[in-house]
């Protein structure tokens, strides 16, 4: 069973927003499941983490796998608006080496060149 989420398309990019507040060993495998199944499509993805208060190492592994799968398929993932604790985790493992981290979804869409009328 996947965790609750919001998925929108804006100007050619997907915006995925997990609504779970916590990702730990109990739901790390499922919180990105709707995207993992479609990664081979190679889309541009803004991963909006503004609702996520805690992400553990297993959840981080899921993010890394999604970055890899999208890259291999010609797509791209940008992480948007991580909360301070999640941002600290990304900094510790230097996630910025494989995925850009933006302060907002609007910033990510601008970087994609995919600003839509409701971007932001």
């Amino acid at each position, binding site marked *: 069973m996947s965790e609750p989420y919001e998925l929108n398309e804006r100007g050619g990019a997907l915006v995925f927003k997990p609504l779970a507040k*916590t990702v*730990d*060993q*109990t*739901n790390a495998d499922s919180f990105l499941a709707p995207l993992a199944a479609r990664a081979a499509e190679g889309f541009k993805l803004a991963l909006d983490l503004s609702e996520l208060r*805690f992400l*553990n*190492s*297993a959840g*981080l*592994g899921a993010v*890394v*796998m999604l*970055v*890899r799968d999208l890259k291999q398929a010609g797509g791209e993932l940008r992480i948007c608006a991580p909360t*301070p*604790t999640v941002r*600290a*985790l990304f*900094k*510790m*493992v*230097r*996630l910025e*080496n*494989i995925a850009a981290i933006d302060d907002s979804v609007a910033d990510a869409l601008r970087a994609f060149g995919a600003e839509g009328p409701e971007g932001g």
Partner: protein
Amino acid sequence: MNAPSGCEERLRLALAAEADAGARLQAAVLIGVDARPRPGLDFAFAALPSSSVAGDFLDIQSLREGSLDLLIGDVMGKGMEAATLGVVLKHAFLRAQARLALRYGAPPRLDELCAEAEASASAHFIARRSIATLAYLRICEREGLYEFVDCGHTGIVHYRAADRGCRLVKGADMPFGFAESQAFRRYLAPYRPGDALLLFSDGLSECEGSGGEPFGEERIMRYLRARGGQSARAIVDGLVRVGSDYASGAFKDDLTLACVRAGMPSASDDNAPASAEAGPVEGEAGSAPAPAPAPAPAPAERSGRLRLVLEPGSGRAGERLRSAVAAALRADGQVDGETAAEIVLACHEALENIQRYALVDGGHCLASWRLRGRVFCLELDYRGPDYDWLSVPEADASNFSPRGYGRAIIDKAMDSAFLCAGFGDEKTLVMARRLA
């Protein structure tokens, strides 16, 4: 039987002279203890050379007020050769201490100290095809903390007064002489008033009973559990006596012991070595030792405990631990948000690590944390099967590793993390971080 020939007699005398020289070297140089009393620290030692001198060495000294350094080691082999290499190694440490203290104006970090000593000593060991195991322990009174580096030695027994439990604390570095250099790991762990730390040589743990069975680490821990509340002197003397009884009075190896009890009234007037053969005590020559200055008042301490129920498929225990640790760090008021987030993450990962590798089917865990003197410590006590903490893989996001980030997070967030064992299936995961 024929009387020895002149040649045999000369050989016997030469060997006896060498053994005597080795014993004198050991007594004069290899066993050195600054036994001045220190308020709040009760310590004692014993150093009993075997008949053939087996290369044990011990050094106890204070490099600054509020700390005590203990170095114990064992050079492979016996006689003059082992004693000489012991002198080489001890000299390398003393020189490294002086050089690094001059550079930093403070006692050096233990990992750096060991690296500096190894740089000058390892060539001698490699050339002589010998090795030395050692453990370096530093008591930091202000932080209520001990630090150690363990290079293949016997480990350190930590007696915990609060629950009368014992843990055998071990590091993971190689003995001196295995390689020209290595990256040493410094571990940190908290102690509490009444706790005792015991360093011992294999002369005790490997002394054999009448059936050939070694005395073993478990007997040492059992002794401490029963008598850990006694003075350091009583603990050391008692262990020597019990070991001697076990070995029917015949230790085949050097026997070296040092015990420190922390946060206790000083009993160091009682610090004389266990026997007259144990060698001189440094710092006693000449005038009477100056009284130690009163220690600085202990810094404020924030601490807490949680009994956690680990259930498969539930994140409740992790949530409770995160919440409690975050609250403690917030209440301190001096820990910045990013540092606090790193520590909370590492605590969570440690708990999940236990759930994932040791308590797969669930269990209980007692989490104890403490923030004192700008050092955060977490201990996770549980009962469970052995697992090799160091073999858990460490991931690298740049290589798109799918898992293993827990270890990477803990290593990045904490200055030290190690797993140690007690009686039966008792385990403790200990983590610590020095804060800016």
